[in-house]
């Protein structure tokens, strides 16, 4: 009985290590693949993005500078970004800003109204599913900013809260 228990524990620990290792290896390869996809602006026409506040043609991503901000309405740092964009709407005239979240439409609508984002012509607040978000951008935390040039290539990526000047530098 004791010998059986000992072997079970040893096998259990080895299996756990094996599980972590195999998951790590597969996670590394899929994460690298997804991170590589971030290098070019995503094709929004392939995604079922809901725009609770307004309808914007998804083709607008082409030929313009695009700022994609992944956010959560309840995150304090995301609220800071939204407030900064709202206060400095004119500074973003040269670009389209896409604020994307996985939260519920009612919450997103309230957030959009709270910061007056629906009044800015070139700011779109959209919702996509967690699965779509992961498949398009890979593992991300909020806020996560991606700035793409008119050629569709990634110019700058910021993880976490980012001041206005740092964003504008890359527009």
């Amino acid at each position, binding site marked *: 009985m004791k010998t059986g228990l000992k072997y079970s524990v040893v096998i259990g620990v080895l299996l756990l*290590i094996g599980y*972590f290792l195999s*998951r790590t290896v597969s996670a*590394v390869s899929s994460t690298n693949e997804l991170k590589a996809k971030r290098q070019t602006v995503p094709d929004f026409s392939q995604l079922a993005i809901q725009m609770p506040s307004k309808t914007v043609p998804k083709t607008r991503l082409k030929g313009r500078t695009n700022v994609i901000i992944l956010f959560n309405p309840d995150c304090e740092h995301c609220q800071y970004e939204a407030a900064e964009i709202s206060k400095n709407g004119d500074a973003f005239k040269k670009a389209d800003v896409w604020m994307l979240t996985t939260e519920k439409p009612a919450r997103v609508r309230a957030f959009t109204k709270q910061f007056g984002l629906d009044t800015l012509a070139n700011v779109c607040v959209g919702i996509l599913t967690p699965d779509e978000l992961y498949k398009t951008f890979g*593992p991300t935390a909020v806020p996560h900013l991606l700035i793409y040039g008119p050629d569709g290539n990634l110019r700058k990526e910021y993880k976490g809260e980012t001041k206005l000047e740092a964003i504008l530098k890359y527009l």
Partner: protein
Amino acid sequence: MVLRQVNVFRFLFLCALALIIQWAFQYFLISDQLYFNSLSNQLTYERIQELIDQSKEWQWLGYVLVPVLYLVKFGLVAGCLGIGYFFATSQFAFKRFFGVAIQAELVFLIPILFKLLWFLFVQTDFDLTAIGQFYPLSALTLFNASELPPYYLYPLQVLNLFEVAYWFLLAYGVTQTLEMPFSKAFSLVLSSYGIGLLLWITGVVFITVTYTS
């Protein structure tokens, strides 16, 4: 009863030393200027100031957590050694291993002290990332940490000469406490604590890979 008193004394001594070094780190290295230098590329002056105020407000938690984290660590190390010993002899000796773990832990204060002196006198131009990534005499020092993916950092930091010294100290402690030949004690350490450490590292790497954005 005597063993318990000795362990309590060792534990308090270790915590006192760790707290002094932590205080010295905060006092000598972690200045407001360091925060500004490290974060000003991305955050505004006001937001950095808020961050500094918050970190000062919660600084006490860092000190409170020292004995708590040590207790958890010693519990895990003694647990690993205890399981290994039980497998070998069918006897329990958790309390004695707990004392061995406290004693051996002293070796890990050396790299922290080394780090403090390094940034005080050698690499005086540094930022928060440099402090976080630096681990003396570790495999990480052979690479340029900023070019490595985040999941490489922790295993390379753990692979250091102090860790090896820790294994020897654990084995020495086991030899002294259980009157076991050193070679046997070292095998016990490698086969129990070593596997536990491997499991811990793979777990940390797995979490880092999965959740790093």
